[in-house]
């Protein structure tokens, strides 16, 4: 992937190691039928920490973060988000989804609603916020992602990069404590990747807890406190971006890095 953002001037870490962890994954296992897609995945993510998850396709990185807000269910192990353990209890699920925002590879904006309605729907109906307040909040976030002038349009009228920025604003309107990004730039044309990454860097500067599945190594170097490398459903290696990229310890990570670098 292209190193759209220059490495070097990183964003200062906001991770609070003293506070209770934001997310705990403890020996999480998942199968699709007989295929073992997550094998004993254990991760602990501190509040305010920014984690980039990378790995070859099919390595289970998307599945891992989709388990965190239970778009996928795991079969073994324990997932605790913001102090709440994920279970079949619907109330705990609702509580978790309110606190966890998600941005998808394919944006998944609601095409029949305007940009503003996309942003205010959940705050009004899930957070029970008065409409005027929700709209003011939405406009505030749309300004932060630099597209307030598009508020009255429909998603189909926007470019891919703009749509993804709206998707980020929509998730932020729920005032989540944790943000999940599932390959947010993979469906974008190269010239639009930067505008989305800039938005995410801006978000990182606010101290948000972020988990991001991406191949944007420049982004990882700039904002990540930790990079987690996954392969075949396992966490193979993890550490600060610089040491991980410069001194890969495992053969698998070396192969992966050489593959993504060769592409450019």
């Amino acid at each position: 992937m292209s190193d759209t953002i220059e490495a070097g001037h990183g964003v200062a870490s906001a991770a609070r190691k003293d506070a209770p962890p934001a997310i705990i994954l403890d020996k999480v296992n998942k199968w699709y039928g007989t295929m073992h897609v997550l094998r004993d995945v254990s991760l602990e993510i501190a509040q305010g920490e920014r984690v980039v998850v990378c790995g070859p396709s099919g390595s289970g990185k998307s599945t891992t973060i989709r388990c965190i807000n239970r778009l996928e269910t795991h079969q073994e192990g324990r997932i605790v988000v913001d102090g709440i353990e994920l279970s079949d209890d619907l109330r705990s699920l609702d509580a978790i989804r309110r606190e966890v925002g998600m941005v998808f590879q394919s944006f998944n904006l609601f095409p029949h609603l305007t940009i503003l309605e996309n942003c205010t729907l959940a705050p009004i109906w899930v957070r029970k916020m008065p409409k005027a307040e929700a709209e003011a909040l939405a406009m505030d976030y749309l300004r932060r992602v630099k597209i307030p002038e598009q508020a009255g349009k429909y998603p189909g009228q926007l470019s891919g990069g703009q749509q993804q920025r709206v998707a980020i604003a929509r998730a932020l309107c729920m005032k989540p404590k944790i943000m999940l990004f599932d390959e947010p730039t993979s469906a974008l044309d190269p010239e639009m990747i930067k505008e989305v990454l800039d938005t995410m860097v801006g978000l990182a500067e606010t101290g948000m807890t972020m988990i991001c599945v991406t191949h944007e190594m420049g982004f990882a170097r700039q904002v990540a406190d930790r990079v987690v490398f996954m392969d075949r459903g396992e966490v193979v290696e993890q550490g600060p971006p610089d040491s991980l990229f410069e001194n890969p310890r495992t053969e698998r990570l070396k192969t992966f890095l050489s593959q993504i670098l060769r592409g450019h």
Partner: protein
Amino acid sequence: MSDMTERVVLGTAAGHSPEAVPGGVEQGAPPRRAPVTSTGLIGWLRANLFSSWLNTALTLALAYLIVRGLIGSVSWAFVNAVWSVPVTEAGAQTQACRALNGTGACWAVITEKHRFILFGTYPYEEHWRPALCILLFIGLYVVSAMRRFWRKELVLVWAVTLVAIGVLMWGGILGLSYVPQERWGGLVITLILATFGLAFAFPLAVLVALGRRSELPAIKVLCVLYVELIRGVPLISLLFMASVMFPLFLPDGVNVDKLLRAQVAIILFAGAYLAEVVRGGLQALSKGQYEAADALGLSYWQKTGFIILPQALRLVIPPLVNTFIGFFKDTSLVLIIGIFDLLTAGKTAIVEPAWQGFGIEVYIFCGLIYFLFCFAMSKYSQNLEAELNRHRRR
């Protein structure tokens, strides 16, 4: 056809079409207009109707047949038609119509019998009541069709109007004389069956379609069973069951109105068909829409009501209206259990000896009424589709 393609290809080679080569525009050459002979009316005629001697012959032969047919129908329906006949105490004197020998329409049968066709055996001096009901129904359709009236109050308007129609038809209060249901008939029966039928079948269909995709096995099985059972039998057999078998299961003395039984059969039948149409729409939505709604923390009903159904129903407007139109006409099947709808009334109107043999005129009249309602539905759905899918425009 192959002649035509050949012609077009040859035309290009001969330089009849614009010769703007790809890339010409980028180099700044102003786009030229296509030659008149290939785009204008003359060009169209030449390409489509007179492209070869065979096409020319076909065009002329068809034009001749169309003109003959038009002249024939106009002289039958208007020029030679008889619009009224004298009515004496012995009944209608239809000799003038008989003398036409089929060369002209006998619209006198409509002039004489239109009230019977529209209102059936409803007491003659009370005909204003079903007439008012028909107007109320039409008013209800018009109001419901306008998007600016699409709010909660519309449900109330429907409830009030339907109650008013019930009061008008039955009477027995407010100084209106009581008219038993057996005497209702004509267009108003068709509208009652169609309106109540679709008004109840549609919500039922949405619930069944959602149920069929439910993760709860009991609900899913129930919905699948309902759809497959009802869809697997003809409407006629359901109507028979409703009219003949159902009363056998009721205790003595309990009697459910025959019209109501037919109405329930129609609702169940239409519900099963509409459910499959709605399910098609639900399946056309991408999984991402469900996931995005879930990730935002919306509840099942919020997700369904705000995200899934609005998109799914928009997608299926054409097949939905197709089914609506089909059911509007299928209500005429109630004639087999002796309910007096528009078509049955028309059929009965020409049983009288004086009017026998004038079925064509009566069926054209009934057909026209059906057509007006169905065509209005079709036109409206096209507008609605364009309007609701505005967001897909770029």
